């Protein structure tokens, strides 16, 4: 997804001289397609994220479209106040590009696990929040949002190969994308964990349980109408996100259910505690934190059973 993002950005930069790429000394074997083609519009800012966002703010104030690239944790948290008081408060088109959501940095450890970036960015009014599900959707999401007014945060995965079945790269601002249909359970997800969710839905289907899987790749503006419509059709929904269980997709869906007074029970599937320092591959960590397709299936079956029992009691 990184390479797809940078390749698309380079294509856009070919026709828009306002595009500028700044990196916090990261992006080896990822940013070269831009930096070699546009050396005058590329700067390695060094390991100084606050200055990088501040400089980008000044560039945006004077007409540039600066894309600021780093690992998701580093670009979302270290300069957070600069983001708030800079591009958010001044409505400037700074683009924050965070690489690697959730556990994508695997063995690199806790400092590299972006588990709160979606929540942090969702808090900021006027900041467009994009988390593409695969490299095809990364391209279409960037092409749909690159010259929007105001700031944008992109959570870009590291997986360059996986394609989410049924998505076909579709992206629309404030719209949700349905990738599989079903009647027993609604699953809502965002970002590169979507492929695990689709796998989980397939496993459930083989057991006779059909699931509608909805991907919301734009959390702000939220695809509220699509979510209301989907949530109105189900009495059980499950959100799955490679993120803390609070602040991201689960919170968004909970807010909609509550505010719209929908009769739908919600199970939020995400990271519930600060990782304890035990590390491993992305796959290992996702399973450990309940985000592998097998773990998602287990959570879904438990939710369906609990929901059925509680509805029986009500009757």
């Amino acid at each position, binding site marked *: 997804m990184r390479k797809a993002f940078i390749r698309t950005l380079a294509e856009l930069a070919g026709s828009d001289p306002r595009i500028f790429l700044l990196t916090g000394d990261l992006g080896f074997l990822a940013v070269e397609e831009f930096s070699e083609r546009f050396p005058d519009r590329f700067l390695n800012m060094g390991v100084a994220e606050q*200055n990088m966002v*501040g400089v980008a703010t000044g560039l945006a104030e004077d*007409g540039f479209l600066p894309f600021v690239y780093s690992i998701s944790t580093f670009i979302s948290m270290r300069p957070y106040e600069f983001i708030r*008081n800079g591009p958010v*408060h001044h409505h400037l088109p700074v683009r924050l590009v965070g690489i690697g959501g959730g556990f994508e940095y695997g063995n690199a450890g806790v400092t590299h696990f972006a588990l709160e970036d979606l929540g942090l960015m969702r808090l900021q009014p006027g900041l467009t929040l994009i988390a593409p599900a695969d490299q095809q959707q990364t391209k279409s999401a960037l092409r749909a949002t690159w010259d929007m007014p105001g700031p944008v945060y992109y959570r870009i995965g590291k997986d360059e190969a996986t394609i989410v079945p049924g998505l076909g790269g579709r992206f629309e601002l404030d719209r949700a994308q349905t990738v599989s249909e079903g009647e027993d359970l609604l699953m809502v997800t965002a970002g590169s964990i979507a492929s695990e969710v689709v796998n989980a839905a397939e496993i459930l289907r083989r057991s006779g349980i059909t699931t509608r899987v909805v991907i919301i790749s734009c959390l702000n503006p939220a695809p509220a109408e699509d979510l209301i419509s989907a949530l109105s059709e189900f009495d059980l929904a499950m959100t799955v996100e490679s993120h803390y269980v609070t602040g991201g997709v689960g919170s968004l869906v909970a807010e909609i259910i509550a505010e719209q007074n929908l009769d739908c029970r919600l199970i939020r599937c995400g990271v519930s505690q600060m990782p304890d320092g035990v590390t491993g591959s992305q796959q290992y960590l996702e399973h450990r934190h309940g985000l592998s397709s097998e773990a998602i299936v287990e959570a879904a079956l438990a939710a369906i059973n609990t929901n059925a029992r509680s509805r029986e009691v009500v009757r």
Partner: protein
Amino acid sequence: MPIPGFLLIVQPMTLQDRAGQVSSRRIRQIILEQSRRAHVGHIGSALSVADLIAVLYEKVLRISDPEDRERDRFILSKGHAALAVYAALFLNGRLSESALDTFCTDGTTLGVHPERCLPGVDFSTGSLGHGLAVGAGLALAARLQNSQRRVFVLVSDAECNEGSLWETVMFAAHHKLSNLVAIIDLNGQQALGYTEQVLALPNMKERWQTFGWDAHAVDGHDRDEILATIENLDIASGAPHVLIARTVFGKGVSFMEQQIKRHYLPMSEAEYVQAMTEVDRTL
């Protein structure tokens, strides 16, 4: 909804009689008048930069229109001295008297810290350590656009506690942003103590020189020296510039000068009378 500050702007010429020259004394008088009316503090910080602001707004900044893209840019990174800037904007006719009188009232765009929505303010500040980075971005943009515009950023000495400031110090020097001019209000004080006791920053000029800046120590109350130093800077090439401006916190009001408690405290009525009497005698 319209922003009040926009509605309060008037044409420069209509204000000449009431406003007049951007003098240090007039800036100080306005700081005292408005602080008294609004009953707010941060008076000493604003008095500290009055001469620097006077030189910038009267002699240095090339601003014919606050939205002209080729204008010089000014960021008051030590945002808590915004009242000095409001006074200068009033004195050079960019802010009406009625607008100035909204300082710190409900619904105003003239708060303790400056907001971008007020014409004449280039960036909202109030959180220290942010303005210089944005100024570096503006300076880089000017260079990339082959513009002659210059960027001035006024920082406090306590602001040099912020690590983010030093990130920008490195960046601007590395990229030789010669159109960037930082001015340090070196009054030796911060909110709760003297900088020497809180987090000492000795040899300030040498520090910036070591980081690759063209550094100049000046008397921050000597307007001729400030102006001459700025006029002699090589804006076209070489290192970014910094004026280490030695100042006196509360300058012009004897009972405020170098007094830590005057960072936050507003004035009593008797103090206001004495302060105005003293400032009236200054140049």
